[in-house]
């Protein structure tokens, strides 16, 4: 799993490339610490190249959502594949996030 973080003004984009499984989640958690701090603005979770998400990955999304709620920011989940959309659906997570095609 590769994570790329871009910042443009008040908008931070986190792009996930590959499988966000349990081992990858530990690494990603460290990498997105700075994003947690910046969660007062808009954070776009770009999932266009994410191929898999595990429960640990969902927990990362949840942590970011909590950080944004505390700091008055917003999280947008962008370009999720149909498979990952189904994971969000079957866990009820689809209702928690603003999803953009």
């Amino acid at each position, binding site marked *: 799993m590769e994570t790329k973080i871009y910042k443009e003004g008040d908008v931070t984009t986190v792009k996930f490339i590959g499988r966000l499984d349990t081992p990858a989640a530990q690494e990603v958690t460290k990498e997105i610490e700075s994003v947690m701090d910046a969660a007062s603005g808009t954070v776009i979770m770009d999932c266009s190249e994410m191929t898999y998400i595990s*429960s640990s990955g969902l*927990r990362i999304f949840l942590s970011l959502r909590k950080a944004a709620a505390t700091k008055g920011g917003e999280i947008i989940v962008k370009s999720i594949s149909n498979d990952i*959309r*189904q994971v969000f659906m079957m*866990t*009820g*997570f*689809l*209702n928690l996030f603003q999803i953009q095609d």
Partner: protein
Amino acid sequence: MDLTPHIQSILDEYRRDLPLFREAEARVKGVINDFLAENGLVVASLESRIKTEGSLTGKLELKGSKYNSLADITDILGLRVITFYLDDVDKVASVLERLFEVDWENTVDKRKLHEIDRFGYMSLHYICYLKDTPYRFEVQVRTILQHAWANMNHDTGYKSGIEVPKEYLRNLNRLAGMLELVDEQFSIIRTDLTDYRRRVQSLVASGNLDEVPLDGDTFRSFLKIDPFGPLNRRIAAVNQAEIHEDTLMPFLAVFKGLGCNTLGDIGKIIKESSEAAYQLACYQIGITDLDIISSSLGPQNLCIAHILKQGGGPLGIRILLDTLNGASESNSALAEVLLEQASNLPFMNQ
């Protein structure tokens, strides 16, 4: 104009003790704010100001002989609490009495000074002692409408001593009377709403759900008894999953869209479709190792199962997903997948 030695000496006191007033301003404001927050009393605003040297000089030039020293002037530090509701003026007054030592001799409830045929500026003025100093401070308490009237009235120049033609005065008084009525009505509406919420809570608690109309208040009360909890816990048990609790208020629009008019209608859906919702969840997550679900999964699957049992098909599910997550073309594809998954389940083949 040259200032008299008397005025000069009061101004010297003012300059010397200005830091003391500044410190007191922050302290008094903090004490009031903390108490209001701790007791859940929401006010529109809490303002404060320290009289400027220019304003004090003007006051002393006009009526300096009234005051022996700075301590005789009670509004060097002034605060204003603006409430939303009329009832809250008295609540804030009792807060002030509790927090500060009140100089009752100089405290005025202008609301009680009104004659029966007069309307106008109504406000509560408290004069309180500033602890460990020779000084006092003033707190005005008024509603947001009284505040609006006072400001507009002041803007007309009425209080500046300029004579205002009778018809304007009459119009201002008519307006004051109307605002007084509006203030009272807001308080009555709030009291009625509180009564309604209490009645609803007791109906929900006693299980008389058919008698409770579905609206934002009643749905919130309903959620307090955790109506979807048993279904969520049953689904979570499939993978020993953690349940992430989240607000379920967005489902109000969904249940309304499904034609529910009372909480009893939702109760019926829970009774008739929980098994089907569970079957759907088992089919979806049973073969995965997902061990976290949102508390919205139970009601979401319940609505899907109800729609499918009613013959709502993919369009019905699409409408549900659009209502919950915002309109998106992807919801159509998801609705088709859900229909296909459900078609393998017992509840669709009975």
